[in-house]
């Protein structure tokens, strides 16, 4: 406890003495964490969007005209027992036509001239959110296609998989970029700490000679690194929050509703903790490495 207090006081004093270069290293780690955080906000929202979309995922099983009631019921039962199915709704030819008229009033007139209703009856199937496993649904689609009485199955979710894959790539890019910037920030911190250490070489020699334990000699430098990292993380979070919350009402929310996303959210508390922890950790490590020869 006393050691921590000592290290903190000394580190704060050293930080203040070298405030110019401290500002630089704090800024570099802030930028690194800002970039990482921005990518995390974007990817976590996109991921949630993909989840919401796939939660609303529907499969349409089109039925052949003239399919009897019992056969249809058998198909419905079959679908309901499948694990990836949440609900099944029967849409008769008439209902399909009514729906079509409602959605496309202009086109409905041409259709009205026709003798017969060209729209097929269908079973509209709601599927469980498919984030992760798509194999069971693919299997279901293939099986339905071969069932007697089924004219066609429409299930077009490739784009959703592509979106999810895109999010993963984006996240990877974010992490690589953030990681590279963090490495640069760690090197900057290490250099700033090493500078402070060189300036205090005589003092450190004296501390060694009066028997100061290594933790007392090195602690302040590790703490100084941690302070850089922690302050950088806080600065990054503040700027991220400022940008996010000022852009939300005018830009982000309209964008979200255009994309059928219920809301856009900031970093989760866990991610905030991770960013602060990351900053502290990187700073500590940099200070620890820089003070090897203290």
């Amino acid at each position, binding site marked *: 406890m006393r050691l921590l207090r000592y290290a903190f006081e000394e580190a704060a004093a050293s930080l203040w003495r070298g405030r110019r270069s401290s500002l630089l290293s704090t800024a570099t780690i802030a930028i690194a964490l800002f970039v990482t955080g921005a990518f995390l906000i974007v990817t976590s929202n996109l991921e949630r969007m993909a989840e919401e979309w796939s939660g609303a995922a529907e499969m349409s099983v089109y039925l052949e005209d003239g399919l009897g009631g019992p056969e249809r019921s058998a198909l419905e039962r079959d679908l309901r027992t499948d694990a990836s199915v949440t609900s099944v709704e029967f849409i008769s030819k008439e209902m399909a036509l009514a729906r079509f008229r409602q959605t496309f009033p202009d086109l409905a007139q041409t259709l009205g001239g026709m003798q017969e209703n060209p729209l097929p009856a269908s079973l509209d199937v709601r599927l469980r959110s498919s984030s992760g496993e798509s194999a069971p649904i693919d299997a279901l689609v293939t099986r339905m296609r071969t069932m007697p009485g089924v004219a066609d199955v429409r299930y077009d979710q490739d784009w959703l998989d592509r979106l999810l894959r895109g999010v993963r790539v984006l996240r990877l890019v974010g992490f690589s970029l953030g990681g590279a910037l963090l490495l640069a920030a760690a090197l900057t911190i290490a250099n700033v700490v090493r500078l402070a250490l060189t300036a205090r070489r005589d003092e450190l020699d004296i501390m060694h000679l*009066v028997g100061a334990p290594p933790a007392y000699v090195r602690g302040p430098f590790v703490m100084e690194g941690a302070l850089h990292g922690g302050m950088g993380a806080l600065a990054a979070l503040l700027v991220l929050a400022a940008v996010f919350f000022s852009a939300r009402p005018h830009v982000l929310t309209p964008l979200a509703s255009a994309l059928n996303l219920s809301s856009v959210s900031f970093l989760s508390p866990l991610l905030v903790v991770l960013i602060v922890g990351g900053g502290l950790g990187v700073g500590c490590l940099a200070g620890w490495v820089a003070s090897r020869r203290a």
Partner: protein
Amino acid sequence: MIETYHLSKVYSRGVYALRDVTLSIDKGEFLFLTGASGAGKSTLLRLLLCAEQPTEGTLKVGGRVLSDLTPAEVQSHRRSVGFVFQDFRLVPRFTVFQNVAFVMRVLGVDLATQQRKTFQVWKGVGLQHRMNAYPEDLSGGEQQRVAVARALVNDPQIVLADEPTGNLDPDLSLEIMNLFREANSRGTTVLVATHDLWMIRRVGRRVVGLEHGRVVEVS
């Protein structure tokens, strides 16, 4: 308490700073180390602090061979030694009070005790009026007294003092010697390197003389 066997120290230039020194200093003893400049006094004291490693021979303090100590043990050995450096070695960034309190701080002593003991030793060296000054604001003699205060504040088992009165007038020198004698009467082993023969006679304790790194007289 302190034993040396055929101890030698050669610096890089090939000069023997110490040559075949065999000495034994009892616990609670007060001993002067004397000799002309360059005789090897500082070298012996630095070896005792583990600030240098012997070239040949062994050095034991409290029954332990110093060259066998791990780095952590070296630090703890140093904390049991009060060392007065010839060039004071005060931390310029600390006030002189902090310089003294620091050696207790790194032992985890609480602030109240740090202050009480620092005040106590501070009165002894006669610097009550200069506690918040920085080393550079003090005269050589005053800095020397700060260095003495720092060496004594922890109630060390051994005091090693390298020319601790080199910058002081006779009255102050004797006061400093009295502080060492007080510590000595509480059981501290004291080893003072000095070429001040007048003071040695005034204090009247055992004397070891060095010449070109060899022990030449023991009285």
